[in-house]
């Protein structure tokens, strides 16, 4: 039973990270119908920004939630900027060209960030300073059950960010504009919505969440390297598809489902097939319910 609970706890913290990344995917897909392959790399940038912020500001000397939040904000700002630049330079000029060109560009941007990341950060893995979250006297264990402080912090922060996002999307003018753009690009523009700005804002918002996920993942799995974004990025995409791409609640649901499935596969069955599981799920979901768990099936229009 303890083992089971332990897996559930691990799955929740893993799922919360997937959820943060998946939200960015699903938002960008919502407004542009584009799979932003570079999203996983933005998450990588977030992790590195977080690490360098902690190092340069010597935040490790003052461990605690406050320092973590500083690192988090720095990472989110850097990621949002990266997202803005990518959208501006690579995607916007291609807005009117065929979708396949946009897709190829996205793949190109993703690889460019990975490998120029290797040039800038070096290709060897670096250790994320997890010491930033040493809370004195913290010891939460019950029998075999151990809950790391990082896990709680990751889950709570992820949930807070998701609620903030939910608020932005459904309760603010910006959110209403985003929904309008995702509903119909041209009509939104006719109604006086500055679509380009809204798309930029969506990219920045999604990227900021990915950046936050980067810092959180650094805390839980402290080895970070420039290629770290690929796998979680793809898995988060699978999570977004699983929940119904374009659907914000669906992305979160899909992410936690994927986290649970992975954790149980690793814990109870064949750990080596971990990376294959997400793609297996993807193929199955595309086969049986392509619109995802919460998605609405939209007939293709001519």
């Amino acid at each position, binding site marked *: 039973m303890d083992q089971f609970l332990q897996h559930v706890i691990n799955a929740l913290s893993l799922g919360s990270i997937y959820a943060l990344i998946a939200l960015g995917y699903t938002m960008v897909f919502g407004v542009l119908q584009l799979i932003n392959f570079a999203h996983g790399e933005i998450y990588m940038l977030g992790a590195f920004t977080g690490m360098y912020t902690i190092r340069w500001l010597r935040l490790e000397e003052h461990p605690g939630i406050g320092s973590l939040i500083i690192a988090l904000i720095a990472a989110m700002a850097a990621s949002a900027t990266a997202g803005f630049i990518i959208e501006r330079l690579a995607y916007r000029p*291609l807005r009117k*060209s065929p979708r396949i060109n946009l*897709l*190829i*560009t996205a793949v190109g941007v993703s690889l460019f960030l990975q490998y120029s990341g290797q*040039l800038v950060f070096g290709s060897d893995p670096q250790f994320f300073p997890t010491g930033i979250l040493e809370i004195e006297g913290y010891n939460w264990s019950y029998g075999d059950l151990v809950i790391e402080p990082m896990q709680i912090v990751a889950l709570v922060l992820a949930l807070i960010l998701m609620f903030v996002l939910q608020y932005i999307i459904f309760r603010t003018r910006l959110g209403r504009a985003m929904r309008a753009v995702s509903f119909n690009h041209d009509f939104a523009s006719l109604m006086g919505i500055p679509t380009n700005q809204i798309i930029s804002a969506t990219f920045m918002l999604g990227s900021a969440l990915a950046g936050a996920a980067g810092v959180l993942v650094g805390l839980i799995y402290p080895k970070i390297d420039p290629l770290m974004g690929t796998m979680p990025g793809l898995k988060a995409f699978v999570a977004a598809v699983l929940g119904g791409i374009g659907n914000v609640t669906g992305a979160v649901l899909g992410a936690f489902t994927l986290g649970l499935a992975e954790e149980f596969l690793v814990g109870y069955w064949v750990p080596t097939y971990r990376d294959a599981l997400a793609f297996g799920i993807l193929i199955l979901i595309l086969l049986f319910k*392509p619109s995802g768990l919460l998605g609405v099936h939209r007939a293709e229009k001519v």
Partner: protein
Amino acid sequence: MEAVRRQTRMPKHRFLFSASTYQTLSWGLVLLAAFVVSPWIEQGINPYWFTIVIYCGINIILAVSLNLVNGFTGQFSIGHAGFMAVGAYVAAVVTMALGANPAWNEFVASNGISESAVLPIGLCLGGIAAAGAGYMVGMPSLRLRGDYLAIVTLGFGEIIRVIMMNTEAVGGASGLNNIPFLSNFGWVYSSVVLTVFCVWRMVHSSHGRTLLAVREDEIAGEAMGVNTTQAKVRAFAMGAFFAGVAGGLYAHQLRILTPQTFDFNRSFEVVIMVVLGGMGSISGSVVAAVLLTVLREALRVVQTWYEIDIRMVIYSLVLIILMLTRPNGLFGSREITDFFPASLRRKLAGGAEARGGVK
């Protein structure tokens, strides 16, 4: 109908044999020539350049076969390395098993067959296995729109890699060793000729027209009675077959297979060849494959200066800049023959159509 066909130079509704006898013969001659010149080339140029020439050939096969899927059918697949891996492993296992089989060795010795005769068997089986894999992946995912296909093919490549890594029978993570060295110039370039010929005939047959219909407008194609799913799966399986053949050749050139060889970068290299050459241009793929294979070797020199793999940075930049400035690549959907003078073009075409893709 016949009059219209003659007027518009529409292809007849057959696949391999609709080429004029003249054309088929000349292709056959080129294929044989690969074997004839093979020993001279192997002895004539230094081993380093020879390896590059072989890799050029393998990359041409990969690029042309992927062009069938990405270029002519308009389906964006980025899992070509997965099919290559299937072909490579199956071909290697087949040749190794046959090489170790006493009955086969006796048969070879008593009939005076060259020892490299196991290679075509391995290549065929590898290709068929890869085509089977392509069919299996294509069936569910090709019903869907392009972006999903991209992710599924990528995911499939990863699944293959994980499976190879966990199968002890093929060496697991440490790889398959001691594969016989059989990929000589003759086998590689006859495969190149065969690939280019088959893809060229495929594209200019009525099957090819359905592929172009899928690329240009899937919904309109469907309305005209094209079974788009079937057309896509067909292109996919055929592309996978040749990727498998290329994988087999690669295995018997490198002599060692590890799952890491067939990662995402491998697929990406092929994608960029297709995009650079022009999606929908066979000769474009050939030119781009040669160009990038040579560029890769040239960059290896740069790599020794900086000690960092700068290749992928350049590749990805090339890809982004191409998409922003010249999305049609070098050739667009034209073929190299389109640039020849008209008189020569007519002669080459031999009465059949001279033009490549649909404009």
